């Protein structure tokens, strides 16, 4: 698969009679879908080269599956790159911070060779200030999009370099990154140097030293500013900002620290249709009412509303397409949603706090809410929900009504001892059979939640599903073995808290024809840890994070010891095993162990 740059466009076509270079060259750039591109590149060498020259964007789902060098050799003219590092479980604090996913080798390659690169997106990776400086210095003049998405390892000093040297940035995205804050200078640099910014996002970061005056300056200078998501900043201080940001469509963040009646002076920009106000309570909520009917997206994850408040607000939003909230919405809120928001496409219901008294007593979601939702919101494409109770019937409803569903994720909370209707075998089967467009599927239950038969159904009835998370499903090895006979499209599998043995997991991997990535935590280990070698094969990296005991001390000094069972991570790689393992990660090297492949 070595791409020889000498085989350039001027060669006459001999392998494809009837289709000239010119026509091909005109058509191929219009093909954007990665799977289509993949197919194009496999036709013949000529088509492979043309794809390599014209591919605009690459997503590398795990940075260790290939190397910067290989990327450069094949896609030298890349305009946009997305790289992902740590396993998804890192978002739940399950992965050691120093696990890996360093951007440095990639940044260095970008700096030197990727001359067309305008958009860089690093997700769950470790970024250093020096990396940001290298990137800013080398690509600053052309860089339009920089996304440091759930990254860590850098400080506001690195951002300062970005603000200073990347004056063409349309998008600066820092959401949920862990950033060491030294000052708010970086935002000031951005404000004075940039006039083309469209998207600014430092939502869910702990940056508090930013000044609202700089935000206002950005709003004044950047006439195309459409989306701003910030950390905690008093809303009353943003009145000037809102006045200046005349084309703003999306705003999230802020904070309400003052008396509710003072907020009547806040006037939001006229085109605002995507909103999420942090710490917004019942008494501040009315400031949204004047334009609630325009709202397409509502983020209530970090608001302080109870079930009644949800009902009151949601019924005023008939054009809502995206809603994110916690389970305080309750079944009643879901019923209101089903009645009022016929255009709803995406719904995410997160889990509330565990402590008593912190959330509404009515704040539980169950089969009742799900059934109403399925019947009312027929355009639903994405549903992720933490439920306290569930039945087969409600899942069947989803299979019957939610014909547009592409992404379904259900977590059964562990607070209630008795669940109305378990196991969910038939409901899951009917949901999968009904939702024919399903690409992503997550089911997180408890022992007894899904039998081996049910697990077999999942394998049988998920032809297009590419990603799955399975938690506490099945009852024995037979389950996962039956499951793995199906799932023909499954590329990425995450398994947690299941009873499967190493041997069964390894055998399943060998049966899943499309699998390229596996993550497991909580499984039945063999005495030697060697049963995993049943899945040893060329290009397949196997890594272990052995069980750890983590001592967490919170900010009031209380210590909590958390047991963290072992993880298995396995993935296809063209780059061989990693060279940057921390102490907490151990490679399983079949060659060293003398395993014949």
């Amino acid at each position, binding site marked *: 698969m070595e791409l020889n740059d000498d085989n350039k466009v001027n060669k006459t076509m001999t392998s494809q009679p009837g289709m000239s270079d010119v026509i091909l060259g005109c058509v191929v750039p219009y093909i954007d879908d990665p799977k289509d591109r993949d197919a194009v590149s496999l036709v013949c060498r000529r088509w492979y080269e043309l794809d390599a020259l014209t591919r605009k964007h690459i997503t590398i789902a795990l940075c260790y599956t290939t190397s910067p060098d290989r990327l450069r050799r094949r896609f030298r003219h890349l305009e946009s790159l997305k790289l992902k590092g740590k396993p998804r479980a890192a978002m739940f604090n399950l992965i050691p911070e120093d696990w890996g996913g360093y951007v440095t080798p990639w940044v260095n390659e970008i700096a030197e060779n990727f001359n067309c690169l305008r958009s860089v997106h690093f997700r769950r990776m470790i970024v250093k200030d020096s990396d940001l400086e290298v990137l800013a210095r080398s690509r600053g003049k052309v860089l339009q999009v920089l996304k440091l998405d759930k990254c860590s390892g850098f400080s506001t000093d690195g951002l300062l370099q970005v603000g200073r040297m990347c004056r063409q940035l349309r998008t600066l995205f820092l959401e949920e990154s862990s950033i060491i804050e030294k000052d708010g200078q970086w935002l000031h640099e951005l404000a004075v140097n940039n006039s083309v910014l469209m998207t600014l996002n430092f939502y869910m970061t702990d940056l508090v030293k930013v000044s609202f005056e700089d935000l206002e300056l950005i709003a004044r200078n950047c006439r195309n500013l459409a989306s701003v998501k910030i950390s905690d900043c008093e809303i009353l201080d943003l009145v000037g900002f809102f006045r200046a940001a005349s084309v703003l469509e999306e705003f999230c963040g802020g904070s309400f620290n003052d008396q509710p009646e003072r907020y009547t002076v806040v006037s939001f920009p006229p085109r605002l249709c995507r909103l999420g106000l942090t710490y917004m309570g019942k008494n501040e909520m009315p400031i949204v009412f004047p334009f609630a009917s325009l709202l397409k997206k509502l983020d209530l994850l970090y608001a302080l509303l109870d079930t009644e408040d949800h009902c009151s607000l949601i019924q005023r939003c008939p054009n809502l397409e995206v809603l994110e909230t916690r389970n305080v919405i309750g079944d009643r809120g879901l019923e209101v949603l089903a009645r009022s928001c016929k255009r709803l496409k995406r719904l995410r219901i997160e889990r509330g706090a565990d402590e008593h008294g912190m959330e509404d*007593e009515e704040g539980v979601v169950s089969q009742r809410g799900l059934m109403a939702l399925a019947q009312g919101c027929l355009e639903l494409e994405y549903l992720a929900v933490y439920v306290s109770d569930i039945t087969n019937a409600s899942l069947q409803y989803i299979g019957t009504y939610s014909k547009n569903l592409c992404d379904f994720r259900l977590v059964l909370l562990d607070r209630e001892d008795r669940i109305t209707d378990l196991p969910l075998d038939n409901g899951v089967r009917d949901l999968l059979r009904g939702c024919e467009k399903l690409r992503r599927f997550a089911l997180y239950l408890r022992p007894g939640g899904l039998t081996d038969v049910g697990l077999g159904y999942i394998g049988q009835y998920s032809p297009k599903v590419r990603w799955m998370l399975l938690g506490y499903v099945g009852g024995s090895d037979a389950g996962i073995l039956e499951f793995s006979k199906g799932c023909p499209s499954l590329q990425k599998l995450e398994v947690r808290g299941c009873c499967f043995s190493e041997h069964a997991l390894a055998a399943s991997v060998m049966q899943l024809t499309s699998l390229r990535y596996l993550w497991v935590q909580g499984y039945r280990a063999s005495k030697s840890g060697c049963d995993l070698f049943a899945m040893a094969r060329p290009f397949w990296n196997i890594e272990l994070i052995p069980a750890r005991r983590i001592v967490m001390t919170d900010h009031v000094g209380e210590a909590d010891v958390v047991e963290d069972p072992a993880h298995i991570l396995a993935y296809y790689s063209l780059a061989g095993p990693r060279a940057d393992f921390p102490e907490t990660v151990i490679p399983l090297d079949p060659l060293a162990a003398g395993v014949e492949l």
Partner: protein
Amino acid sequence: MSNLGQKSAERASFVNLLSQYLKEKRSLGDFSVGISSKPDSKGQQAKTINFLSHVANSSESSRPNIVASNVKSADFFPGSFGASCSKEDNINKTDLRKKPVAVEQKNAQLTIFFNGQVVVYNDFPADKVNEIMALANQGSSTASTGVNVADSAMEKPSSNADKIDTNNTDIPDLNVASGTANTPDQDPSVERRQYGGSDLRIARRNSLHKFFEKRKDRAAARAPYQLNNNRVRLPPPKPEEGQSSKETPRNIDLNL
């Protein structure tokens, strides 16, 4: 994969011996762990006790590789590897729940885990081990007798050992168990506990976790009698009765 069987048996024994060695080291209180402190942005200290760093430091291999065949076993096991191997396999088969036993021939040291305590015997005659195992196997009545016998010769368990909770869910092992490594597969009554992650809580998203912490802080800060929390920008102090009573309903309110 024809060599696999033979080699895996060797590896299995080696890894078992290694893990027993670690347990012994722990019980003796001679237990140096690599504790790395990683404060996150909120100042929380997450200390990872990495049991394997001990192994990594002891061995000469540059990388802690679970099945590294070139780790110098002589460093850990002065006794002959082959001999201990077979005896080890034998003993492991008769392991009881809650009572895994480590045997080290050369040091003649016996470690017994029982009921949350770790007991170490130095200079324990190797031939007596099978006797003890047989006694323990016979059930609770004779087991208690067995323990009493051991009591008289008992060395005080180290203080570190007391802290070790042998409740199956924790002792991280080179076998990279999910916390149930000490539970033998054969015992059906522990099948449910062996459910891979019985100790796995539903994990919470970092972003929400931070939000809930901040919400608690805000609730604490708004209570009139609390100290100022400089994380939250408070409204200017309001000494009037009327104002503070407006604050307190907020605290009681479940909306917090």
